[in-house]
């Protein structure tokens, strides 16, 4: 690829060693990418660069920013949107969807069991020490029965594709999964960028996600004309853009903890006309922070009394507090067994092979093979607290081994996975970059998954860390009709 020429060609496009989502073995373009590739070649380099440029500007003027933690000034950054879409065939999507539905049903049964009968612990399928030692297991939730026994209403699992082209679940995000606003806004922008392709390719629509979300939230309360609020930590939170966006799209009130007051175990908003009752809260604050009278006392984000109102059934919280116990990274390796236990089925979507440092034989293996493993802290996320063995120094590895040995429960390890690659616009032309996939599932009376997702892309050459806080960008995800 050369910038100087206007011509786009894929003759030098590198695919060796990875599953490339556009070009298969022997350099053959996969069928679902064919039309798009033709369009690119016809368009030429200059036009493509121009489109990317106007996309950057559109993002800025929409204020699609996220705040970066640990930056003193709370710097706002744009999650870079690469205009080359990630395309998924209808067939691949349909099987992914089936696998996700199965997994989410099982995980909800698991959470409900853990906080009630604990059959799975008694049957010794999952070690009970692991559950009790999890920081996300909330004693306060024991004995609770949320409506329809659904705990996790909104899920955003991280899915990857390995060299074999199969989908794997890398992480279950069951607490406050973020990013869905980017799925929706990226689509709006790309519809302006490649209008004709949407029609020709029959890209499935994600447009109705907010409607489905609203219906789902309403279904959680018997009240007619439920009053719904999105609870945000506030505008300095990294996902604030999304909280505001969703509140607007839902026609819900965007509230902070300080806007709420609990009286007689009911939750009210403080308004210009007095106190107004709330029925359903779409909670975007970590469980620990929602109520300083029950959880963290130093939380300024929450509302005293909120948890008690929830416990009495006077307000619905989505997701329910306590779901984190099922997305603890130490529980993750047991998910296939969890599916088998509750549903009597084999997992349709495989896990990534995982070593549990709390188990002696696995610990030994991890210590001996750390240089080709990815080690993760079980209670961390966002790309923090991890070691990528093959890209680390001997010193870093030694330091990590010490940390693991001092608290094995806190670590798991996985082989380094060659995340699949998707063509991406770079300074040097179009090159493959590693991606993951985060679809969003909504669970009220039944599970609904809109055919789309946030595709995160590691923009740095060779990098496999796709997190926005670590230099990742995003792509629109096109699920084709067939």
């Amino acid at each position: 690829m050369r910038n100087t020429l206007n011509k786009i060609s894929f003759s030098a496009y590198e695919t060796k060693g990875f599953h490339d989502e556009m070009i298969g073995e022997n350099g053959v373009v996969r069928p679902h990418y064919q039309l798009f590739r033709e369009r690119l070649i016809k368009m030429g380099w200059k036009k493509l660069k121009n489109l990317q440029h106007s996309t950057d500007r559109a993002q800025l003027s929409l204020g699609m920013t996220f705040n970066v933690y640990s930056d003193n000034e709370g710097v706002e950054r744009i999650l870079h949107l690469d205009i080359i879409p990630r395309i998924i065939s209808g067939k691949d999507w349909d099987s992914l969807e089936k696998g996700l539905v199965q997994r989410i049903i099982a995980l909800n049964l698991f959470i409900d069991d853990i906080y009630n009968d604990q059959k799975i612990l008694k049957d010794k399928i999952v070690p009970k020490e692991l559950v009790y030692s999890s920081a996300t297991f909330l004693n306060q939730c024991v004995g609770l029965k949320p409506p329809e026994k659904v705990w996790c209403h909104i899920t955003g699992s991280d899915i990857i594709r390995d060299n074999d082209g199969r989908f794997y679940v890398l992480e279950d995000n069951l607490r406050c999964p973020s990013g869905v606003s980017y799925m929706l806004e990226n689509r709006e922008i790309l519809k302006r960028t490649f209008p004709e392709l949407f029609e020709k390719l029959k890209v499935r629509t994600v447009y109705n996600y907010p409607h489905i979300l609203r219906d789902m939230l309403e279904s959680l309360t018997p009240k007619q004309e439920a009053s719904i609020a999105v609870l945000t930590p506030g505008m300095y939170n990294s996902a604030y853009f999304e909280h505001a966006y969703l509140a607007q799209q839902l026609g819900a009130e965007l509230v902070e903890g300080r806007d709420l007051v609990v009286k007689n175990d009911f939750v009210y908003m403080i308004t210009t006309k007095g106190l107004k009752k709330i029925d359903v809260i779409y909670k975007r604050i970590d469980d620990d922070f929602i109520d300083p009278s029950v959880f963290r006392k130093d939380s300024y984000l929450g509302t005293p009394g909120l948890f008690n109102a929830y416990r009495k059934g006077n307000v619905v919280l989505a997701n329910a507090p306590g779901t984190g116990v099922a997305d603890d990274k130490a529980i993750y390796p047991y998910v296939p067994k969890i599916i088998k236990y509750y549903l009597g089925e084999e997992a349709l979507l495989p896990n990534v092979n995982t070593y549990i440092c709390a188990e002696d034989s696995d610990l030994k293996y991890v210590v001996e093979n750390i240089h080709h493993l990815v080690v993760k802290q079980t209670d961390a996320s966002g790309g923090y607290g991890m070691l990528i063995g093959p890209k680390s120094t001997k010193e870093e590895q030694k330091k990590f081994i010490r940390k693991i040995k001092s608290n094995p429960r806190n670590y798991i390890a996985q082989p380094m996975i060659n995340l699949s690659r998707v063509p991406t616009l770079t300074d040097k032309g179009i090159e493959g970059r590693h991606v993951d996939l985060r679809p969003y599932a909504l669970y009220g009376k039944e599970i609904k998954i809109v055919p789309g997702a946030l595709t995160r892309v590691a923009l740095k050459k060779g990098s496999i860390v796709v997190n926005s806080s670590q230099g990742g960008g995003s792509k629109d995800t096109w699920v084709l009709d067939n």
Partner: protein
Amino acid sequence: MLSRVAETIYWMNRYIERAENYARFMDVNFNLSLELSPDLEEQWKPLVVTSGDWDLYKSLNKKIDKSKAIHFLGFDIRNPNSMHNCIVNARENARAIRPEITREVWEQINYLYYFVKDGVKKKMWERVDPRNFFIEIKKGCQLLYGILDSTISKTEAWHFGKMGQMIERADKTSRVLDVKYHMLLPTPEAIGSPLDLVHWSALLKSVSAYDMYRKAYGKLTPPTITEFLIFDLNFPRSMRSCLVAAEQSLQAISFNETLSTNRAIKQLGILKSQLEYAEINDVFSTGLHEYLDDFQLKLNSVSQEIYNVYFSKENILNDNHFITN
């Protein structure tokens, strides 16, 4: 609506109005400086004084000149009221209440934000002629008013915004009028001189009132200009029309309330009546400067009462009034 949100919208609109006024003041004053001899360093001081931040200015700057004054009023992040800070604050507020406003409103505020940030980067105050920059800010704010009026439903949120805007505008017109008090003429005989008239017409332009004033009165005389800016019922920036508009919005907000107990309505009503029943001679017998000072104080207490009635969490919780629907 959420009381925090109401307050945020109220201030968002005040900040935008303030930014627009500052942009216009600087544009007009720059123009004026071209018509007067360049050694008049007193040219910029009155503007800073009437902004109410002269003490802060003195603590930050040793002397006053064109570029320093423009920097202070326009771009200094240490001046809480600088045009730059007003726009940044307006955007922060808009972000905090993002679901209340339309995408068009948000995009325009965002545009202004990046534009003023760019102005800081390019050090606009050092430019030979920064007028186009101020005009662009002014137009950007005016475009925003139009977008607010044409895309936001006229519900509580809009009225809180409008009320904020009108209170800010009334305050700014009263301050501009006060500039004349601080613009010293060389001798008492200079009253009515060409220099004096240059001042007065600049003052009218500072509140976009020159054309409409000319239509209404024709001849430039200090008493009629003063009368126009304080009492005119038709000109949208006169202090009186601003209060009339603010009162309309407050009435829309307080619809169905027991009015006798609402101190915000009472204070605003009293201040508006004062303008309705006063005459220009009353102003001059009190002294223009004193009259305007008093007006600004009373306007502040209106703002304070709006806070007490609608924004203060403590007061609302004490009232313990539950909405049923």
